[in-house]
């Protein structure tokens, strides 16, 4: 294992200021889960002027739909899902105060720009490592949209939860930069590392 930056949540502007693409970080504290159905509902509620079920200011949202917990366990396997599917909702989520997101894969141009404008950060956790990430989640509680099952919003307490900074607050994009660095093919690199 290489070096990691330990980060205690919530994410402050000062912490975000110090993060750069390619940084390996470990989050400790509280994060909230939300994926497709929860995003759709939050944005619809916000646009209708309704009160949200949680205050999103300063929050880190984890894109995950875990497996059911075995008896006595806080959660099942809990790795990230594809972030790009949440792109249509993300600029609005950032307006509502979200400061960090954890998913897998790249983000589209509009989201990359919104991350920079909002001085936020997007990280990936390693997709397909839900069993390993389970070990970094110490407690879980459904806080909204229980009817959505695996897609409900959960409050997670995490300890040294591993992630990698992909889009920092300065417009950096690790997927595009990394691909340029390691490409030996003569084929042109797609814009945004394929996340466009």
């Amino acid at each position, binding site marked *: *294992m*290489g070096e990691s930056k330990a980060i205690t949540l919530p994410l402050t502007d000062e912490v975000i200021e110090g993060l750069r693409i*390619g940084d*390996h970080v470990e989050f400790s504290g509280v994060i909230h889960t939300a994926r497709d159905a929860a995003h759709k509902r939050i944005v619809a509620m916000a646009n209708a002027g309704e009160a949200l079920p949680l205050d999103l200011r300063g929050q880190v949202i984890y894109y*995950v*739909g*875990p*497996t*059911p*917990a*075995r008896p006595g366990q806080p959660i*099942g*396997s*809990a*790795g990230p*899902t*594809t972030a*790009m599917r949440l792109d249509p909702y993300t600029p609005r989520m950032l307006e509502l105060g979200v400061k960090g997101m954890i998913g*897998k*894969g*790249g983000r589209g141009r509009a989201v990359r720009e919104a991350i920079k404008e909002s001085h936020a950060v997007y990280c*990936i956790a*390693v*997709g*397909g*490592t*839900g*069993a*390993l990430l*389970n*070990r970094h989640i110490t407690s879980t509680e459904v806080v909204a949209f229980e009817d959505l*099952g*695996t897609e409900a919003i959960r409050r997670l307490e995490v300890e040294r939860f*591993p992630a*990698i900074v*992909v889009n920092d607050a300065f417009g950096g994009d*690790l*997927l595009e*930069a*990394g*691909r*340029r*660095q*390691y*490409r*030996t*093919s003569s*084929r042109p*690199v*797609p814009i945004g*590392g*394929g*996340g466009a």
Partner: protein
Amino acid sequence: MREIEAAAITETVARLAVESTHFLPEDVEGAIRDARETERSPLGVQIIDEILENAEIARERMLPLCQDTGTSVVHVELGQDVHVSGGYLIDAINAGIEQGYGEGYLRKSIVENPFGARTNTGTNAPGVIHTEIVPGEELHIGFMPKGGGCENMSRYQNFLPGDGREAVVDFVCETVDLSGGNPCPPLIIGVGVGGTAEKAMTIAKHSLFRKVGERNPDPEVAGLEGELLEAVNALGVGPQAVGGSTTALDVFVETYPTHIAALPVAVNIQCHSARTKHAVL
């Protein structure tokens, strides 16, 4: 004529669902271990280490390798001298999916009415079941819990007959480039060339049941597999698309005779959690 009880099929499918989602196949884990030695990006190596540690934790603590326990893709080869008794084959398979996903604490990811209410079926059934009638009196069941992230990156295109081999290489590279980190690289890439639209995608998917390193018996096709693997790894996508030299662990190509007017090409991508399990009854 040999009798196989539907209940035995249900039990087998339930077991395959649980085992496939918890135990990474040895050939896949071995290929990931090998990639660790050749990966040029330090961050890529760190990701590979997390993937290997994940496989160990999943095995030891009976936690699914990935929270996406997939669409249950079941490939059945039914010997023509077999008689299934005590129930209908497809019902028996779906009952096995329901049993395995319940007992195994697996995620139920299947919704009805895809463009409408999208209500979860609550069982992960129905599976996507392919049946083939083959000679003999055995029943082969291949089980693949196929993740949504990688399946979403599938692509199909009709090329001109004269476009040839180069079109296949360009299309596969373009597909991998565009999919980036979404399908969870390092990947295993299934490519179907020929047949019709549905045949090309079906053989692309079926190729993903092969073991890593298993080449197509046709030397010309095997040569294309080697060329594709090299071309894809030159893209620099790397583990989880952070940049690196390991974008794919293997590329499998299957072909089928096609129409004089056609060159169908289908790409079906598998993530590094390349989960498959077989049983023979």
